[in-house]
C-alpha cells in the first residue's frame, strides 16, 4: 500500500532553510495532486509550534501531520530526503521528512503499518535512510510489503 501511495511523491534536495520550509517542500507533491490544501501545511507547522517536535518519530526522521480540519481532501503520503540536516525545535536534527495526510481515522493505517515495518527492522531502516533515488526507496518498501 505504501509504495503505490508514495509513487511520484518522492523528492531529494540538498538543503532547506528551516524546518518550516522542509515541511512545505515535502508537502509539495500532495498539494499539487490535490490531496491537501495550503491550510493543512499551516496546520502541520502550527502543530509543531504548539505541541513540540514530537513528530520527529525516531532520530533523523520526522513525520509531520495534523488533525484534519478541512485541509485534507484525500489521504496521501509524501517523502523528502535532505542531503544536509535541518534543525527542528529543541535541536532535533532531521534529514528525512515523511508528510502524512489522513483524510479520516482509518484510511491511512495501512500506510503506517508498512512504515512501521520499515522502521522496526534495523537492516531495512538503514537501507531506507541510505536510499538516494526513488527506485531504491521503492525497493526498500517492497521488501516489507
Amino acid at each position, binding site marked *: 500500500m505504501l509504495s503505490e501511495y508514495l509513487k511520484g511523491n518522492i523528492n531529494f534536495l540538498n538543503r532547506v532553510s528551516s524546518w518550516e520550509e522542509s515541511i512545505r517542500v515535502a508537502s509539495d507533491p500532495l498539494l499539487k495532486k490535490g490531496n491537501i490544501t495550503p491550510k493543512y501545511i499551516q496546520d502541520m507547522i502550527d*502543530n509543531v*509550534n*504548539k505541541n513540540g*517536535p*514530537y*513528530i520527529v518519530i*525516531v532520530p533523523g526522521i520526522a513525520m509531520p501531520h495534523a*488533525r484534519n480540519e478541512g485541509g485534507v481532501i484525500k489521504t496521501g503520503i509524501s517523502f523528502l530526503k535532505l542531503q544536509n540536516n535541518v534543525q527542528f525545535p529543541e535541536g532535533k536534527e532531521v534529514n528525512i521528512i515523511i508528510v502524512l495526510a489522513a483524510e479520516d481515522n482509518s484510511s*491511512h493505517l495501512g500506510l503506517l503499518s508498512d512504515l512501521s515495518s520499515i*522502521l522496526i527492522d534495523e537492516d531495512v531502516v538503514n537501507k531506507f535512510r541510505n536510499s538516494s533515488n526513488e527506485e531504491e526507496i521503492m525497493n526498500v518498501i517492497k521488501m516489507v510489503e
Partner: protein
Amino acid sequence: MENVIKAKTPSFRARIQAVGGFLTNMVLPNIGAFIAWGLLTALFIPSGWFPNENLASIVDPAIKYLLPLLLASTGGRMVAGQRGAVMGTIGAIGLIVGSDIPMFLGAMIIGPLGGWLIKKFDKLIDGKIPAGFEMIVNNFSIGILGFFLMIFSFYFIGPVIEAANNVVSSAIKSLVDTGYLPLLSLINEPAKVLFLNNVIDQGIYYPLGMQETLEAGKSIYFTVASNPGPGLGLLLAFSFFGKKAAKRTAPGAIIIHFFGGIHELYFPYVLMKPLTILAMIAGGMSGITTFYLFDAGLVAGPSPGSIISYLALTPKGNFLGIISGVIVAAVVSFIVTAIILKFDKKTDEEDFTSSIEKSKAMKSEGKQILNPSNELSNTKISKISFACDAGAGSSALGATTFRKRLQKANIDGIEVKHYRIEDVPEDTDIIVVHKDLLERARLSHKNKRIITIENYIEDPNLLKLIDELGKR
C-alpha cells in the same frame, strides 16, 4: 489566535517548572536525613531536652558534611545517574572543607554541575574506548575530573559563597542602623533558608540583644530571626495544601520545628517552592511588627528557637506580646503560603505525579527482581493506548509498531489502540505519549499510568514495557 497564545505559555512555564521540580527532587529524597539531624539536635545539644555532650558531637559533622553531601549526591544522580552522584559528591567535599559555614547552597550547585561534567565527558568518549578498557576509563575519568572539581570548588565556589555570606552580614548591620526592624526580614528569611540562620542569629542578633538586655532587661533582637511562627505557618499550609510527599512530611516537620526549635526542618520546603520565601518574609515582618507594637522582647537568645524556649525566656508582662507575635507571624505566612500553593496547584500535581510515576516504576522494577511471578501478575494490563494531538499519525504509528513487537514477543491478550489525548477511554491501563505531550495527557488523565517516549519505534521505555509484559 487562541492556539498561538496557548503555544507560548506552556513552554516558558514548563521551563520555570523544570527548575522548581529539579530543586524539589534534589531535596525531597533527603528529608529523612534532615529529620534525623533535627531530632538529634533538639534532644542533645546543651540547650536541648536531654543535653548529652557525646551525642551532641554528631550534630556539627552531620550538618556540615552529611546533609550537603546527600544533596550533592542526589543532584548529581539526577543529571547523570550513579556516575553523576559520585562526581557531585566529590565536588561537594571540596567546598565544604573550603569554607567554614554549612554549604547547602553550594552543594545544590556543585552536585548537578559534577553530574553534568561527567555526562558531557561520557558523551565525548562514547564509542571511542577500545574494548576491554571500559572499566579503567570509566573509573579514571571520574577520578581525574573529580580531582580537579574538588580543587576548583575548594578554592573557588566555597569562598564565593562565604563571601556572599559576609555581604549578608554587613547588609543586616546597616539595616539595623536604620531602625526599621521589620525590614530585617527581607534579609533574614532568604539567609535562613540558605542555612545561614546560626550565622546571623548568633553572629549578629544575639550580641545586639545581649547589649540591649543589659540596659532594658529584654530585647526584641532575640526574636527577629528566631520566631518559630513563620515556619509554623508555612508547614501548616504545606500540610493542608501541599503536594503529596511534601504534604505527608510537613506535619512531622512541624513538631520538630515548632516544639524542637529546629528551623532547618522547614528550609527544604521553601527551597522546593522558592516563591514561598515571600510568605516567610511577610510572616517575619508581621511578627517583628507585632513584637514592636507590644514592646515585647526576650531575656536571652532562644536557642533552639522553639515555642518552648520562647515562653521560657519571656519576661513577666510580655507574654501577650510574644505569643501574639508568634501567632500573627504564623497566620500571615500560612495565608501567603496557602495562596502560593493554591495558585501553583496545577503545576505541582503535574510535577509530582511524574515523579510518583518514576518511583512507582522503580518500585515495580524492584519487585520484579525480588518476586518475578507473583506481584506483577496481579496488576492487570489489558489495554494500552498510544495518544497524540491528532490521534491519527504518530500515535497510530506507535501503536501499530508496538502491536508488532508484542506479536514478535508472543505476548497476547493486550489491546493496543491509538487516540487523541483527550479521547483515551477510561478502561485504558497504560497511556503512552511523547514526552512533549505529558503535561496535556496528565491534565486529562490524572490517575493513569503514563509512559513517556521520545522515539515511537524503539524507545527504551517501550522496550522496558514489553519486558514487563513478557514477564507476567
